[in-house]
C-alpha cells in the first residue's frame, strides 16, 4: 500500500513537472494585454474592477480562467448582462479570446472584479494582476490605478507594463 502511494506520488510529481513544462510554452506567449487599468474606488467602498484589452496572436482560442491580485482579498471574472434595461453582473467561469482576435474588458462589460480591497487604492498605483489561462500558463499584467472622473484618457502606450510569468 505504501509502495503504491509512493508510486502514485512519483507519478503525480512527474505529471506536475510535465504540466509546468507545458505551461512554460503556453498560451500566455500568444496573449498580449493593452491598456490595463484599475478604476480608483470611491471613498468608503471596497470593490472595484480592472479593465484591459486582451489580444490573442495565436491560432487557438485562449480562455482566461482565473485572475489574482494582491490588493484585494478576492478576484473574480465578471460580465454584465443587460436584461431588459437592468444590468446584471454575474461571475463567469472564463473570458475567451478568440484565435487572432481580441476581447475588451471595459466598464459595463467583462471585467476583473476586485472584491474586498485590503486598503484604499491610490491614483497612479500599480496593481500586479496575474491571469491564469486554460492551459495553466500565466500572464502577469501591471495595471495602473486611474481616476474615473478624469476626462476620457488619451491612450497611453506606457500606462501598463506587460510581462510574462512562467
Amino acid at each position, binding site marked *: 500500500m505504501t509502495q503504491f502511494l509512493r508510486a502514485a506520488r512519483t507519478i503525480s510529481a512527474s505529471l506536475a513537472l510535465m504540466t509546468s513544462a507545458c505551461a512554460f510554452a503556453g498560451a500566455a506567449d500568444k496573449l498580449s494585454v493593452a491598456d490595463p487599468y484599475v*478604476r480608483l*474606488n*470611491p*471613498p*468608503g*467602498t471596497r*470593490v*472595484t*474592477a480592472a479593465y484591459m484589452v486582451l489580444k490573442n496572436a495565436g491560432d487557438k482560442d485562449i480562455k482566461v480562467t482565473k485572475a489574482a491580485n494582491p490588493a484585494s482579498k478576492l478576484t473574480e471574472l*465578471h460580465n*454584465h*448582462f*443587460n*436584461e*431588459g*434595461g*437592468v*444590468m*446584471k*453582473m*454575474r461571475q463567469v467561469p472564463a473570458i475567451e479570446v478568440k484565435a487572432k482576435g481580441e476581447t475588451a474588458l471595459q*466598464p*459595463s462589460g467583462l*471585467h476583473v*472584479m476586485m*472584491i*474586498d480591497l485590503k486598503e484604499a487604492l491610490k491614483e497612479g498605483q500599480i496593481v500586479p494582476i496575474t491571469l491564469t489561462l486554460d492551459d495553466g500558463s500565466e500572464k502577469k499584467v501591471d495595471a495602473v490605478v486611474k481616476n*474615473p*472622473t478624469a*476626462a*476620457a484618457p488619451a491612450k497611453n502606450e506606457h500606462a501598463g507594463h506587460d510581462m510574462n510569468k512562467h
Partner: protein
Amino acid sequence: MLSPSRRLLLDAALILSLVLIVVAGYRYANSQRTEAGNTLIPEANCNLHRSACAAVLPDGRKLILSITPRPIPVVQPMQLEVRLDGKAGAPLGKVEVDFAGKSMNMGFNRVTLTTVDGSHAKAEGNLPVCVTGRMDWLATVLLELDGKRFNIPFPFSSDPEAPVPAQATADDTLAAAQPPTLQGGDFTLLSAAGPVSLQDYRGRVVWLIFGYTYCPDICPTSLAAAGQLLAALSPEEQQKVQVIFVSVDPERDTPQRLQEYTRFFHPAIIGVTGGPEQIAAVAKHYGVIHTRQPADAHGNYAVDHTASSFLIGADGLLAAKVGHPPMPAEVAAKIRTLPPLSSQERKLP
C-alpha cells in the same frame, strides 16, 4: 411653481393612469383600448428558434416574423424581419417588435423596424439575456396597417428545444403592447444636507441616476460620466443642471455615505436615500426595477437595477431616458436642447 392649469393637467393624468390600471385588470380590457390595437393570434406551435412564424391579417394576407440567426441568440445581435405575404394591400406603416418576459416585468425593450418596401421591414435587435434559467418570452409585432393598429404576440421559450409556450393571455398581450409607465414625478428624499425634492429644481435640468454605493461597476460608470458631463459644461450651464443619485439600497446607503461617494465623482452631485417604501415608490414612477441579490458569505450583496437614467426638464416632467453606459458628450448635447440651456447663447469652442 406649477401653474393651476398644469396642476389640473397633472391631476387629470394621475386619475387617468389610475383608471387605466383598474381597467387593465379586466381580461377584456384590451379590446376596449384603442392604444393596444387589435390583437391577432399567430398560427399555433410555431417555434421562432426553428423557422419564421406567421399570423393571418384581417385582409387575408399573412404577416411573417423572422428572427435570425436560429436558434435565437441571447446578447448577440439578431436580425428581425417582418414581411407581408399574399395579394397586394395597404403598405406597412410603423412596425415595431416588443420583447417582453411573459407574465414578468422585464422592462422596456422595443425595436422599431426600418421599412424596406410596403411589405417588408427589418432591423437589428438584441434579446436581453435571462441568466437565471429558462423563461418564456413574447415577441410582439406592433404594426400600423391602413390606419389601424395591430399587435401580434409570438410566444417563444429561451430554450430552443422547449415546447412553444402557450398563447398569451389577454393580460400578457396588454402588458406587452403598453408603453412603459414612465410618468416620472416629484419626490422628496434625504441627502446629507437635508431633504431634497425634485420640485426644488424647477427651471433646471435634472439628471436622475439610480444606483447604490456598493455597486461595483455600473454606478461608478454612470457617475463618472455625470462628473465628466458637469466638468464639460460652462459654469453658467452647470448652474442650470443638477445630477441626483437615488440609492436603491436604503439598507446600507446612509445620506453621509452617499455624500462621500458622490463627491468623489463631482462635488455638485447630490446623493439621496429614504425608507425602502419611499425608494420603491420613486423607482416605480420611473420604471426602475431593483432587486436585491442573495448575500455572499461576508454579507455583501448586489442590487440589480435598471441602468438607464433620466433627464427631467425644467418643467419637472420626464424629458428623456438615457441608455447605459451614458456618453457625456451625448448627454451634454441632449441637455443643451432642453430649456433653460437651449435658450442660452453659447460660445462655440
